């Protein structure tokens, strides 16, 4: 009232009337933030906030987490089971028993007619670990198909494969605390501020306390690249060449940690021999980074007291994704940067529980990094589950990407999709669409009934989402954290765990396999078979996890019985000498010859198509596309296109253009920016019927992960802008 009015009016500020805060772990990315959802007097979730004393996020949330309470009643939620004889027909609502019986009967019918493996199950990284474990037990122990995988093949398979090849097991060895100790950070194809904003904040906090050099390898000038001390705008698909050149310099200038190599690794000579071929002057011509910079980065990295690498899809989603991971591991191993504070090779995972599915789903093997190829592992698990050892296959079956090719060729006739939407998320959507039309039977289990893949389903099972369920998730730094039910699923929708257990009853006719009903009990079962494993969680329980706001594995029963409280953070793997998971405890240094099998721009398709993520959206936008305060920042698909290229093609800012690849086309809006080079466009992948209509997605030979980020397109100007706008809009309708 300095001026304005002499008589002050009372102030009104929104009070949402929260009377209770409920604890959960965020269900978006793999950062694993602890979140509290506020309920008002009517029990409606009205607010979200970060848990102040959680070590991961320390009270912070990104914009998706801040609006996570709006998720529960978003449009398109499935509330009743549905059924139909053919996907041409309209859905008929049905009851759970009919839906589950039909599914059971169809699975068995197909298996009997075409063989056990002709029915495939594709799950996700979105569910809770107890659910993954139960689904794994059901699939491996009772249904008995070996074509069982998760959509984590689309994001983390290369990291898994690379870790296994280098260290003898999956499991990221570092933690967020490493930012506080590192003297050099290389981010490979990772745009932290946009993709893992809270991890970025942790890094920023560390950097403000103690400045350390940041090197960013990314063909696009992301915010992180802009903040980098050294930005390496690499030619897409040539990371291995850069890595080999860096190692060339390190060996050439004797910057390696010979003592560490000797004590902890095998195969160094083969590696030396291979990288000797990659002189920086030669590598520069392939990867587009000049030789001086290569040398300078190699010296900076190798001379740092502790150096770490982080990476995301820029490495993983490539025809040599697994090799790229091994290359990063090689760099860390030859400089002694594993298992020490600030020295690590840390894969920044994708989905909230991608780690949980890696550890416990039995997709790629058996629970807790056990392998089907290992007779002892098969025996242990068969005994524990009380099944016939011979029922388990002796090597893993197909990956998700291969499963779709097998549907195409007719090997696979039936499919159970769980919380994943391949029609949006797999490369070459039209090929996926054709494959899905061929299925004799498809059951889709999802929290949204308008998920695009349900178009080709015969049964739809409505599932609960995120905090309508109880269980744990594991984050990027191996922290197991708890989700508790905040509300119940809408209508007749049920938690995924309930669905699996009901399905299990139908397959478990003799009753010999035990399926606990409660999530906390399942956790204890899992804990008991984790004893002595790399991912030992035998000291944890749901209650202890919540109390500690998440516990990093390993935390053993022994530690618990000795009253050793779990540390807040800072737990690392491979801290002891020769403690890797190969039999002799030594990591393997693997030479990486470079094979250029990417689709690269040519005369007909002269522009690189680079795909990636936006901070406001989550994956296929099924969640964030329905939350206005997330979706509004990018409601329709767009490309970043270099203004010089736009000018050549006479494309104005805000015009729709058509992108054409060898697969199909997509209509997108153009935003000219110098963020991308003249021979590249950047297209966010979140939008249905868009980026993946274009992508080729050649598969990595080791991880079978698709190379989403290296395709070639041409750009066509559209004269009828109104029709383009209409088309773009139709494709956005849920």
């Amino acid at each position, binding site marked *: *009232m300095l001026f*304005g009015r002499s008589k002050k009016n009372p102030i009104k500020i929104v009070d949402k009337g929260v009377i209770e805060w409920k604890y959960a772990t965020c269900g978006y990315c793999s950062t694993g933030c602890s979140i509290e959802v506020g309920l008002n007097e009517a029990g409606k979730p009205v607010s979200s906030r970060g848990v102040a*004393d959680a070590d991961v996020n320390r009270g912070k949330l990104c*914009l998706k987490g801040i609006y996570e309470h709006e998720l529960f009643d978003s449009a398109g939620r499935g509330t009743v089971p549905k059924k139909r004889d053919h996907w041409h027909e309209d859905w008929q609502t049905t009851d759970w028993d009919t839906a589950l019986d039909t599914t059971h009967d169809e699975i068995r019918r197909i298996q009997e007619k075409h063989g056990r493996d002709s029915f495939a199950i594709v799950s996700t990284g979105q569910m809770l670990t107890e659910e993954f474990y139960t689904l794994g037990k059901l699939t491996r122990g009772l249904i008995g198909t070996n074509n069982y995988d998760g959509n984590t093949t689309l994001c983390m398979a290369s990291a898994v494969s690379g870790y296994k090849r280098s260290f003898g097991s999956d499991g990221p060895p570092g933690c967020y605390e490493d930012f506080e100790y590192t003297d050099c950070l290389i981010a490979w194809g990772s745009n932290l501020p946009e993709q893992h904003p809270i991890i970025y904040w942790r890094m920023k906090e560390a950097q403000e306390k103690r400045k350390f050099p940041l090197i960013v390898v990314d063909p696009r000038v992301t915010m992180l690249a802009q903040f980098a001390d050294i930005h390496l705008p690499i030619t897409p698909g040539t990371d291995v060449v850069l890595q080999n050149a860096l190692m060339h310099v390190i060996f050439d200038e004797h910057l390696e940690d010979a003592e560490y190599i000797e004590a902890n690794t095998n195969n160094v000579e083969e590696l030396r021999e291979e990288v000797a071929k990659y002189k920086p002057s030669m590598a520069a011509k392939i990867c587009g980074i000049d030789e001086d910079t290569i040398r300078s980065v190699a010296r900076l990295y190798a001379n740092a007291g502790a150096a770490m690498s982080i990476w995301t899809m820029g490495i993983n989603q490539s025809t040599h994704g697994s090799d790229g991971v091994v290359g990063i591991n090689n760099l860390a191993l030859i400089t002694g940067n594993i298992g020490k504070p600030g020295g690590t090779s840390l894969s920044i995972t994708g989905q909230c529980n991608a780690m949980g599915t890696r550890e416990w789903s039995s997709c790629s093997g058996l629970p807790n990094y056990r392998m089907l190829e290992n007779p002892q592992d098969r025996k242990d698990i068969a005994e524990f589950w009380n099944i016939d050892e011979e029922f388990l296959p002796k090597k893993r079956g197909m990956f998700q990407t291969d499963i779709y090719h097998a549907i195409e060729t007719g090997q696979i006739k039936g499919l159970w999709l769980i919380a994943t939407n391949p029609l949006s998320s797999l490369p070459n959507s039209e090929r996926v669409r054709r494959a899905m039309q061929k299925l004799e039977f498809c059951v889709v289990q999802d929290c949204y009934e308008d998920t695009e893949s349900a178009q080709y389903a015969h049964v739809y099972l409505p599932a609960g989402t995120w905090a309508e369920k109880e269980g744990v998730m594991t984050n990027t730094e191996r922290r197991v954290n708890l989700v508790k039910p905040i509300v119940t699923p809408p209508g007749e929708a049920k938690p995924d765990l309930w669905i699996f257990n009901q399905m299990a009853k139908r397959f478990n006719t003799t009753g010999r396999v035990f399926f606990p009903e409660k999530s906390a009990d399942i956790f204890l079962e899992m804990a008991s078979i984790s004893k002595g494993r790399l991912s030992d969680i035998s000291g944890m329980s749901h209650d202890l996890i919540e109390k500690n706001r998440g516990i990093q594995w390993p935390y053993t029963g022994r530690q618990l019985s000795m009253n050793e409280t779990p540390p807040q953070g800072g737990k690392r793997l491979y801290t002891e000498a020769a403690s890797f998971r190969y039999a002799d405890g030594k990591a393997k240094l693997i030479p990486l010859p470079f094979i250029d099998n990417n689709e690269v721009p040519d005369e007909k398709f002269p522009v690189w198509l680079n795909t990636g993520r936006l901070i406001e959206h989550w994956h296929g936008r099924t969640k964030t596309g329905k939350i206005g*305060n997330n979706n509004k920042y990018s409601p329709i698909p767009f490309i970043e296109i270099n203004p010089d290229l736009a000018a050549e093609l006479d494309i*104005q800012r805000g015009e729709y253009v058509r992108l054409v690849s060898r697969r199909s086309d997509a209509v997108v809006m153009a935003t000219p*920016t*110098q963020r991308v080079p003249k021979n590249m466009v950047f297209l966010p992948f979140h939008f249905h019927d868009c980026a993946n209509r274009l992508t080729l997605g050649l598969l990595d030979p080791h991880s079978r992960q698709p190379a989403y980020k290296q395709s070639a397109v041409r750009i066509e100007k559209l004269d009828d802008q109104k029709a383009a706008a209409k088309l773009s809009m139709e494709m956005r309708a849920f």
Partner: protein
Amino acid sequence: MFKKRENEPAYALLNDASCQTLNRYGHTINTVEAGDVRRDQSLNINDDNSISANPNRYKQHGFYFNADNCIACHACEAACSEKNDNPAHISFRSVGFVEGGTYPAYQRINISMACNHCDDPVCLKGCPTRAYTKYAEYGAVLQDPDICFGCGYCTWVCPYNAPQLDPVKGQVSKCNMCVDRLEVGLKPACVSACLGNALDFGVIENIPVNRVQAKTEIPGFPRTDITHPNIRFQQTRTPQRDMSRVDQNPVKYHRQQNSESFNPVVDMKHGVEREWNWTRLLGSHENAHIAFTLSAQTVMAAFLILLTGCWFEPVASFQSSSAMMPSLYFMFVLISFGLFKLNMHLGKPERFYRGFYNLKHSPVSREIAGVSLFYTGLIGYIFFAHFNHGYTQILQILFAGIGVLGAGFGGYFMYKLYRIEARPFWNHWYTAASFCATGLVLGSLLLAVIALLFSSMTVGLGQVLLSMVVVGLVLDLAGLTAHARSLQSSSSEGAASFYLQTTRYGNAYWLRNSLLVVALLLAIYMLLSTNHTVFTYSVLTVIALASHIISRALFYVVVIPTTMPGAFFWKNQGFVEHAREVGLVDMPQLGVVHERHHAFNISELVETIKTTTMKQKFSQLRSIFTG
């Protein structure tokens, strides 16, 4: 009051240990001195009458933004909207950006901006309803949506796009500085949510730990002399010479030679093709203003010509002719239509009476008061024209006086309210010239056409009226020429407006100019040839009217405020228009809504009249003058 957790993280806590006495504008940082009666009062937030013990409660606070660090993660916006329960199309804080350079030496500067709780809040001064208050507590500028009637004038005058006009609710709301959090020692929600360590908050001029600058200039941020905003920046990375906006505004910011400051200059991002764009030109939400200003100026001028022209024989004879009463009736109908359009464009038309509330500061209040006075004068004058007694004649003269006074006062402030610093296109004497010209040209032609219709046209009257038309047209053309010159040579958003005017609306612009010249030539020809046929007058009237409608439509549609840069979709008026045009707006969760009209809610008005006591009514009336 905000419920503070026991374990709030340190970054969320207010932490000003000391502060300076004066800010950089020379104002005291203490909002009121010790012992002032305005101290130690409750803010009465949601009826909580407690008084906070925050030691810095009576110091001007402000946001601190480190542009070096902002990553455009939108966490600040989300936290703000979550706390204030704002729908997707409203945001008290928003992030836009400017970019420059060439790959890979590309640079993007993100700017997160809310209200700057200015020392000289132009929103507060402009608001006709006195919905704004600058509090002694924290120096917060708060707006009360329950008082607002949704005219949107504050959104015109604020250079930072802080007040948000909600087309759905028909009212404005804005950043409230999270005073409920400040009262319990917490920084605002946006600051606590920041993930780039870019946003901070505290007593103004205090530089946060680890930061080295407290500037008031970054590329994209408007000049500070308009409002003396309470925001400080750090921006140590040297920006590129040209930093461009990515929204539809054809503006970029160019670094001054040997200086750190950036000036807005034209960015010809839409090319140089001349277009018509009739739908956008004539389909804007500002049509109500076109109708109101044109009709009010025409009628007020016609009334003034009639009354002050009575010393001229031709006008005096018009007064006594059969055309006199029809012309008054027509004037009444025309201005009533204008006033109706104006009132009905409000978000809350039933709150029209609040338009007078801020006579002390607001040119809008003064305009409304003046025009209402004129309207009263006109009605009284018409009414008493029906009687022929001595005292009714005196009363009629009295009302004529009221009308003349109202026209002068209202007309002046009608012009004055467009002299907005944050809208360089309007902030020129051309606005006055254009408004006067409308009155002279259309007012004279109104009288001429009615005189012709009622066979009261004389050679003398024609000459008087045509002379005024000629004067008006010359004034208009002179104003236009001066305006165009000034815009072209200016380094401001005005130059960008001129670019829009001559490209996107280029054909309409040149059509208008040509029509004015044709009208001038025709009027001169008629004046010299004493040609007073119905036909020539009709042609002249149609040409003049068309040129004025186009002119006024251009006036509203090409104005570019000195506002914060938007992003490509969010806070981009271009995308908003596109979404409305192609129907994207009908999809939920888009953050864009239709413009809409709001019905006159009679029951709310009756309810207000019923529930307000006589005493309250008097005190409301008194406060119009006392503030």
